[in-house]
């Protein structure tokens, strides 16, 4: 057991920290409603500096480093309060799936522009009627000569309004059993028949989207795996989404805890310093402890990954615990000044916390509802009998 950075890791950390202090420090804090073009340029800067695709094989434009470096990257980014690369769907979902399932041509075509931020991806998994029940999706693709003709509707697709490509789960064989009839396509979001409608969230932000497919023609070879492999391919995607999620979440929580500490140490709009209230002190300490526990749980899961190639099961609870911690933390932050905290235009204590408090309510729904995650832990980790 050794939590010290190796000399190589320490060098990487120092280099990144110094790069960030030069390239990022001093920019204003993003309240979650950032300017996308600026973010995209920032993604390009990160790529040029060598901080994108750290763990990807070098043949695909990555640096072939161990996941430890990704963890260091996420920690340092968070401590510098710097926003991440905007191509998260591409980097965490589409990219790894293409590496695992793609043809050489597909890898050649898609991976590089995904890394440098020049092409943005979105995903089309959920449907209005399907929710947590992914395999019940009904968006269809029918072969017509050299093309799949896609019809249907997807929801909860972040970045769809900015995306160039979509990883899309479609039903290609309606006669096959539920899971067996699915395939996994790469769809050009600029193709005729694709319509994106923003879904405004309770924060007021149109962060997610609905995507409508109306006789969209997709080249026959824009498929990952073969027809009928959709479920298996989608599981690869979701595995990668969850696999890389933990460090991003604990790093994000660290950022929020630091913001909370800053908030309570300064006198607020009512002249009081919340840190003088023992009940608030108790709550702040609780969240700091929770954050550290998630951080080190990620390290444990990472250690297992480094040893065995598979992340440890202990990481499976991180998203669950993080989402609830983030909800408690943001509600606490918003509550410290009572009604002052609800006045919309009373920055700096409001815009930021109001946004993130409301946004946090989505944390227990998106990327696997907490109910589904508890089922998964019970069934897959603890071996309890399936409830359905």
């Amino acid at each position, binding site marked *: 057991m050794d939590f010290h950075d190796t000399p190589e890791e320490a060098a990487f950390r120092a280099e990144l920290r110094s790069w960030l202090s030069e390239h990022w420090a001093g920019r204003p804090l993003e309240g979650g409603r950032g300017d996308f073009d600026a973010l995209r340029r920032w993604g390009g800067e990160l790529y040029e500096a060598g901080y994108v695709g750290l763990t990807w094989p070098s043949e695909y434009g990555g640096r072939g480093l161990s996941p430890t470096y990704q963890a260091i990257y996420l920690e340092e980014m968070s401590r510098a309060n710097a926003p991440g690369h905007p191509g998260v769907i591409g980097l965490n979902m589409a990219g790894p799936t293409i590496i695992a399932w793609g043809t050489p041509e597909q890898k050649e075509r898609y991976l590089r522009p995904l890394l440098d931020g020049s092409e943005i991806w979105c995903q089309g998994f959920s449907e209005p009627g399907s929710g947590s029940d992914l395999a019940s999706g009904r968006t269809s693709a029918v072969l017509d000569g050299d093309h799949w003709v896609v019809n249907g509707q997807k929801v909860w697709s972040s970045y769809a309004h900015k995306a160039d490509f979509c990883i899309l789960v479609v039903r290609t064989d309606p006669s096959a059993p539920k899971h067996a009839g699915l395939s996994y396509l790469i769809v050009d979001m600029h193709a005729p028949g694709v319509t994106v409608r923003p879904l405004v969230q309770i924060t007021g932000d149109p962060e997610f989207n609905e995507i409508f497919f109306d006789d969209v023609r997709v080249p026959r070879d824009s498929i990952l795996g073969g027809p009928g492999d959709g479920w298996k391919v989608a599981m690869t995607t979701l595995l990668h989404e969850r696999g890389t999620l933990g460090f991003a979440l604990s790093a994000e929580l660290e950022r929020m805890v630091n913001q909370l500490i800053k908030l309570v140490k300064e006198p607020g709009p009512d002249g*009081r310093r919340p840190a003088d209230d023992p009940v608030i002190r108790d709550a702040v300490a609780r969240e700091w402890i929770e954050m550290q526990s998630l951080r080190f749980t990620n390290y444990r899961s990472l250690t297992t990954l480094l040893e065995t190639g598979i992340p440890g099961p202990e990481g499976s609870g991180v998203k669950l615990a993080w989402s609830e911690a983030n909800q408690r933390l943001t509600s606490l932050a918003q509550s410290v000044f009572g*009604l*002052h905290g*609800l006045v919309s235009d009373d920055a700096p204590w409001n815009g930021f916390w109001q946004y993130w408090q409301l946004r946090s*309510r*989505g944390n227990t729904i998106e990327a696997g*509802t907490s109910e589904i995650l508890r089922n998964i832990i019970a069934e897959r980790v603890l071996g309890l009998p399936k409830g359905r």
Partner: protein
Amino acid sequence: MDFAFSEEQEQLRGFAREFLASRYDDVRLAEIADSATGVDEDVWPKLASMGWLDQDLTFLDQAVLFEETGHRPLPAPYFSTVALAAPALDAEAGKRIASGALRATLAWAEPGRPQALLDPVETSVSGGRLDGVKTLVPDGAVADLFVVVAADGLYAVEAADAEVTPRSTIDGTRRVADVRFSSAPARALASGEEARVLLGRLRDRAYAALALEGVGVAQRALDLLVAYAREREQFGRPIGVYQAVSHKASNVYVRLQEARSLAYWAAWCVSEDDEMARQACLAAKALAGSAAVFACENAIQGHGGIGFTWEHVLHRYYKRAQWLAAFDGPERAQRAEVAAFLLD
């Protein structure tokens, strides 16, 4: 021991529920919340003609209306006028309120100072002229008259004599304003000990009213959750069969009933000027505020993604719930006062 509203009060409830539901369906409510003012300008004369603003309504009559205006939010300065301002005003003003000619509110909090209703303020009056800066004034942008808390008592100031800056809150139908008074003509309402007692009563009344609204909010959130859990299917069955959903609804139900019991107790204590009024109102505000938030959060979770959209009505209730819970300080502030009763 009788914990029921009278037959007349239940009739009033039925009528109010019908009136509000027909006037403010979820779409209309959203339109108003997202409008420039957040207020339905046309409803005020109707409230007057329905007698909701009458001086002879008891607080228990009003309690029914507060609960119903939480269940289906009323985008008008009803709470401000009736709960916060009217009890400090004279009969003449009461008549103007009853006729629909006067909307009023209370201005107490000051920037950079503790915000609670009973905290000391700096605003001062000299020679009938009032000077001071107030913040967080509920419905301040649509009030005709301010009841202003000054260091030595309570005063009435016409809105025309004040400089009002509207501020939006996350709840579009319950905004606040900053109000600046510069040598504003002020009419004394109460001073010294009388003012102190009156302010305490105003606060008790406001807490009870907000607790009742919170009960209405929680009830609506539960109604929506239960309806959705019955009809929405996942994995081939309505989601209400899964304990992860049904037990959420049960938990909300239990908290809601607790909150309702305290809110009614508080309302009765206010109406009777009972010796337990202060504790009852603190308890009701603390529990109902958090119960409303809890109900909305569970309802959003039970709805999944759709409950997290701007389009769905749930977030309107959630934001109202947060407003109620935050008013005059969060839950823990009320608990600290309760603790003082119990332990000091």
